[in-house]
């Protein structure tokens, strides 16, 4: 049974391990490496460093170093540069907590989380 499943998995044409980037409505963050404005294409590097030729008509103009979100070989959005300072998510959670406190919905999320953890 295990052997059968392993064989079936090997034969399975997915784009990635247990995941199809194209079908899954996925967006792949990439960095523009080189631009070919004549053809409306750009050479881009994904987070693992692999290079891809990407259609950039929907987010032009792009320049080397820009970060874009790619789906099915096409850039569908520009991404903000990673700043290296406080993350957006930390800020969002902090904002969430202050809203929660302001609305008197209970103790802060961190306190609650500690209580849950205990």
């Amino acid at each position, binding site marked *: 049974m295990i052997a059968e499943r392993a064989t079936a998995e090997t034969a399975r044409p997915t784009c990635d391990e247990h995941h199809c*980037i194209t079908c899954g409505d*996925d967006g792949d*963050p990439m960095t523009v490496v080189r631009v070919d404005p004549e053809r409306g294409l750009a050479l881009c590097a994904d987070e693992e460093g692999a290079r891809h030729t990407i259609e950039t008509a929907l987010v032009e103009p792009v320049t080397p170093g820009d970060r874009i979100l790619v789906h*099915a070989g096409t850039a569908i959005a520009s991404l903000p540069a990673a700043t290296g300072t406080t993350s957006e998510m930390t800020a969002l959670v902090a904002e969430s907590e202050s809203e929660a406190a302001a609305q008197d919905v209970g*103790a802060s999320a961190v306190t609650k989380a500690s209580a849950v953890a205990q």
Partner: protein
Amino acid sequence: MKYVDEYRDAELGQALSGEILSLVETGRHYKFMEVCGGHTHSIYKYGVDDLLPANVELVHGPGCPVCVIPMGRVDDGIALAHEEGVIFTCFGDMMRVPGSEGSLLEAKAAGADIRMVYSPLDALRIAKQNPDREVVFFAIGFETTAPSTALTLKRARADGVTNFSVMCSHVTIVPPLRALLESPDLRLDGFVGPGHVATVVGARPFEFIPADYGKPIVVAGFEPLDILHAITMILRQLNEGRCEVENQYKRVVPYEGNQRALEVMAEVFELRPHFEWRGLGFISHSGLKLSEAYADLDAEIRFSVPGVRVADPKACQCGEVLKGVIKPWECKVFGTACTPERPIGTCMVSSEGACAAYYNYGRFAREREVV
């Protein structure tokens, strides 16, 4: 991996989990639908379900473009693939979707020239490399993928490639959501909106959900913290008596969408009067076909396509799963007759399908642990 890691931080996840716990009312059961298959996949992959209180239930929506393709459409694709001289191209998961007499993968094994591509541009490249062959691209996907097909068709036209055509099975997200909301057996408290569809169409098209059906919707990103954060935002709306469209995924989604993508889609596509969805039946104006201006690149016009309609297998309960009426493991054939290796229904085929995601990541933990 900084850009990704910050959305998977364990401490922040615990904080959000605690906040969700503080926002739910004891004794009330909450049902939220994540519309997108990508969310379903993330929920199972990262165990987001396990960070929620027992009275918060996530229902998996129709947002997998593979799941919704009916059997007859697959049969049409296979018929096209068997046409003399045709190279048939499609995305990976589509190759395993069962038609009434097998899948595209089986048709490939039987000798049809069927090739997996990662983007429509790859299919166009194959057409340029094989000028003596007809190359057909089986286009599936929601509004996230449709602009890519549209741009490829424009490129084919501009480059004078005449041996390329598209079998268009693109679908739109709003009509099935409306159909689901009209369904009498559906009970939902809110929606986690599809982040990458919204990257293209914006958050505005979802305004009918609060306006017409009184349900909140929060457009969300795909990392685990995005999903948890979206759930806190829905709960806060419910607690405050608000009901609106909110955008959790502002770092990517403009409220008005990508205007250039919408323009190119409007030029290349037009709405079909109706389109069949697996498990949901025919839904008006929910599918796209090529516009008059691009009719010469429409594979369904260029070739003789049977246009068959095949009823879903009786044992398969994909329809109920897609509507969120039952959980995947409640289907009679889940994990027994229907597995990712031998799928009966399409929810088990695509990795983003609710059944396959559950089978791969949660098969042995069907009872939720109380946080």
